[in-house]
Each structure stands twice: as structure tokens, then as C-alpha cells.
């Protein structure tokens, strides 16, 4: 599995971890990771520790997730981005939409 989902015990926090290339090939898995949940988590963490690459369709997927989680009211953190991944997120100015570390 290259997209691993984990929900905290109280059900409030969803962690989605991506392994390998984060591109269009992950589309289905990524969407399912949050759409199949019964209850909506309060906060979401996207862990990119094991992500090696990220393309513009991945950015689109992050936007989908943000939209699903309530758009401007969503609480999404993108964590453990490598420097290459951070560069891509910075060029796109996605730090204006997501809390990126």
C-alpha cells in the first residue's frame, strides 16, 4: 500500500501517509483514504516522509482533500516534506492554503 491511513483513537485526527511517488497513480487510493471514513475528522495530517516525488496532480489531490475537509475552514497539515517536495509546494504557493512543515 502506498497510501496508508490512520485514524486517532478518538476519531478526531486522520493521518494519511504517502509512500513513493505522489502522482496521478495514487489518485484513487488517496481519495478513498478520506472518503470511506464514516465520521469527518477535525484535523488531517498528510505525512510525506516517504514520498519521493510530487507532481501537479498531487497538488490537485491536496486541493480535493481540502475541499472535502471544508475548504477555508479545514485544518490540514502537510508534514515531513523533503526539500525537493517543499520546493514544489513553495513554487505553487501552497503554503498559503496548507500548514506545511
Amino acid at each position, binding site marked *: 500500500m502506498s497510501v496508508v491511513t490512520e485514524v486517532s483513537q478518538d476519531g478526531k485526527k486522520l493521518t494519511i501517509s504517502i509512500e513513493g511517488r505522489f502522482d*496521478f497513480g495514487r489518485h484513487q487510493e488517496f481519495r478513498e483514504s478520506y472518503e470511506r471514513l464514516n465520521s469527518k475528522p477535525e484535523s488531517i495530517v498528510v505525512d510525506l516522509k516517504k514520498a*519521493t*516525488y510530487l507532481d*501537479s*496532480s498531487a*497538488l*490537485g*489531490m491536496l*486541493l*480535493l482533500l481540502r*475541499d472535502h475537509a471544508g475548504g*477555508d475552514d479545514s485544518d490540514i497539515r502537510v508534514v515531513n516534506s523533503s526539500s*525537493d517536495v517543499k520546493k514544489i509546494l513553495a*513554487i*505553487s*504557493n*501552497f503554503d*498559503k*492554503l496548507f500548514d506545511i512543515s
Partner: protein
Amino acid sequence: MQSSSEPLTVLIAEDSAADRLLLSTIVRRQGHHVLTAADGAEAVDVYLEQRPHLVLMDAMMPVMDGFEAAQRIKQLAGDQLVPIIFLTSLTESEALARCLEAGGDDFLAKPYNQVILAAKIKAMDRLRRLQATVVEQRDQIARHHDYLLNEQRVAKAVFDKIAHSGCLSAPNIRYLQSPYALFNGDLLLAAFNPAGDMHVLLGDFTGHGLPAAVGAMPLAEVFYGMTAKGYGLAQILREMNAKLKRILPVDMFCCATLLCLSFQRCTVEIWNGGMPDGYLHDSLSGVRTPLPARHLPLGVLTPQLFDDRTEVHPMSLGDRVFLLSDGVIETSDRDDQPFGVERLQQVFSANREPDRLFEDIQQALRDFRGEARDDFSMVEVRLVAPTQLNPPPPVYSDSGQSSPLDWSVSFEFRAQTLKRFNPMPYLLQLLLEVHGLRAQSGALYSVMSELYSNALDHGVLGLDSSLKRDAAGFARYYSDRNTRLDELSDGYVRVHLHVSPNGEGGRLTIEVEDSGEGFDVARVLARPVDSDRLSGRGVSLVRQLSHQASWSDDGRRARVEFFWEALA
């Protein structure tokens, strides 16, 4: 699972009548339909006429032996699998191998074992069906592929037209797009506005293929339409963003750099949302100033949150602005390492001949990777003297018979409006209803824009134009301007237009008033008309392009006139 006991038509080619009869009986008893042939030639004929599913072929036969018959039948069958089982009393392995080499799929040794024969027919039938399915699916895929290619070809032709209906062929533009860059979502647009300024957009839609190209159409429409009408970058950007946000799915957006190159003011105004750094290349010092992305791509933010703030940089003749798509820096080598910005900058520093920059970059990409990606775009726009360009005259569709010739109108634009609305395109559209003014629409637009921005910047906002003496001051000027505009709570700009007949032609008087402090008219007008200075360009431009330019009320009120002769 599909029933495997479906009756087959089996051809038995056997020269011995007794064996033929024996085999026929066995096979028929297993539920199949039987055809027979007494030699190879006959077997080929029967195959041609009746197209049996499977062939039991004796190897040694008169007229034509089984080997040759097998070869012919296989040839005739083409993509279809017609299993051929050789019937043989041969035992040497070499002879058996020959059966398979001739196209046989299996062999059965004499004397026949009924159980094994039945099992072999079943196995061969499975193979036959598998092959049929594969062929059917292959043909289906090929058909779909053809449809798709054709659709892409048509769509590409349409998009190519859209992307090339502007002024990309202007002598100061150089661009390089891989043939299918557009189909990978890259878009390059260029057009002149009524003042002769050039707008250029390099965009990159998310994703690939047709979905990425569909957004190009509305974006191009907004770009060309609004540029032709004289809208500024901020308004065009707002409209593009709102339109894309409205029509595109959430996960689709368009990274874009939009710039306005003003040949009269010698400036470039630029907005970069999500594209790689562009570069402003100073031709004298060789310094390349990065033009980084300061904004989210188009189509992400709601109109309320969208940020249309642009940056303005001074330029000199011969300076260039270079833009590129991420296809260039994300081209990867065999180890998945991207080409990257640092390598690009190395190419910059090694570049000796500015006109060969594209070639140098391409060479570097080839050296790096061995093959070029098919989705990269580069464009370079040079600041040249306005006389080197020939913006096409605007096209008007009306006859002009109803041209209004005697009227006046006054507007007052107050603080809340000044903050985000540029009334110039509307006023220009209004004035261009007057046929006699159309021939000078460029000068008219430039003068009106200058008067308006002078009234707003120096009048209402109280910005000191001498700040623009050098590049650093230039940047400060525009950042101060943004701040003051944000904080603006009162003030106004008034525009009075007066059109009246004058002999056979007519006269237009434009007056622009502002609520500012005014300026020392005598001192400013005493300065020589100097085209190399960055500051005070507005006033000299106005004086060059219009008649009777004058300032009154301590510089708070500007007045210019335009004349036209009788229309032919």
C-alpha cells in the same frame, strides 16, 4: 467459466481411409462436428471453405504433406488461432520437433488414445478462445486509440489556433514549445493592448492530455478579449481566476505568469502564480533578476481571496524577460533526478550569445537526460523601441454611420472604486464609438492611461515620482503604491470628456482632475523631454502624444485635446 464442451468443427486430414473413419467416429462421439480431407491440399481447401476450429493433421500424406498444409493453414488463419494437432507414428524427437516448427501446436502419437485426444482437443480449444479474446480486445483498443488520436488531432488543431491567434510572431518574442506541450497543458498567449503594450501569458494546467487542455479555451478568451479592450493585468487576472474557479473541478488549476511589457514606459509588470521563477535579464550588466511565484495558481482561490498584486520592474532597450514551464526544470535523468534550477542557472552563466539561450538550454537538457520531455515551453520577450513593432490596427465591425459627434460626459471615481476598478477600458470603449478617434486609439489610450495613473498615483495617493529614479526606488514606489491604495478611504479622480464637431472633423477634450496636492507645473514642464529617465515619463508622454496639453489648478487638473479630420 464458459462451457468448454461447446461442439467444435474439427477437420481431420488423414490419407488412410481406415484411420480417417476411426478418428471421425471418436471425435464425433465426443460431440464435435467433423470434416475430412484425404491429403494436405484437400485439407487447405476444406479449411478455406469451412473454417474449422481445429485440425487433426497426419504428417505423412500424398500430394501435399501435413507440414506444408499446416504452414498454409496457419498463414490463412492470420491472427486467429486454429490449433493443429499432428497425428504421427513418428517417434524420433527431431521429427516431432518438426511438427511444431511447421506451425503445429501439439502432436498425438498413433495408435490413438481416446482420453488423451479428448483432453488435447479441450486444451487446444481453451487456447483458441484465449487467443480470440486477446485479438478482440486488441482490435477494440486499437479502435479506441484511433478515435482518441483523431479527437486529439482535431482538438490540437483548434487549440493551436487559439494559442497562435495573438502576436506570438512579433519580432521581439521568441518561444519554443514542444509539439505536444499544449496537449500537456502548456499555454502561451500574447497580444497587444490598445496602447501598444504587450501582454504575454505562459500557463500550465494541472494534469495531462485533453483534460489539461480544456481550460485553455476560456482562459484564452478572457486574455484576448480583455487585453484588446485595454484592461490592466489585475482585472484580467481576477477575471481569469474567477472563470477557472467557476468551471474547473477542484483538483484542476492553472499555474501562470502574466506580464505586461510597456515599450513606452520601459517597464514590465508581472504576476506569477505557481510557475517556476522567470528571469529579467539586464542586457548591460548581464544580471538576471528572478521573477518568483508570489501567488497561488489561477483557479484555486475564490474571487474574494484572490490576490491580483503585480510587481513592476524598470527595463532598458534590449533587456529580456525569460519564462519557462516546469517541464524544463523537472526533466529528469535516468535516476529520476530533476534537471533543477541550479543547472538552469549554470546554463545562464555559461551563455555567451543571448540569442542562443534556448539552444543552450536544450543542449543541456539533452546532455542531462538523453531525450527531451515533450511538455516544455520557453518564451523570451525583448524590450524594443515601439517603432520596431507594428501592432495590428483594431478591427471594428460597425459602419460608423451612427457615430456620436456632439456630447459631453463627466465621471467622478471615488476611493472605494479607485481601489480596485480601472475605468479606462470603459471610457476608451465609449470614445471609440466616435469613428474619427479610432485611427488614434493607441495614442488616446496611452494618454488617458497616463493622465489617469498620474491623477491616482501622484494626486490621490501622493506618491513621489522621483522615487522611480533607480531600480530600487522603482520597487519601493510600487510597494508604497499598493499599501496606500489598500488604506485609501477618501479622494477622487474626475474625468470630463467633451466631443464636438470641428470643421469637417471633430475635437475631443479630455480633462482629468484629482483630489491631491497638485505639483509645481512650471518646474516639471521645464524639464527636457527625456526618454531615458524612469521618472516623470508620464508627463512627457502625454505631451508627445496629444495636442494642447496643459495643467491648471496647481497641477490638479490636466487638459488635452485630440483632433480628427473629415473621414474619407
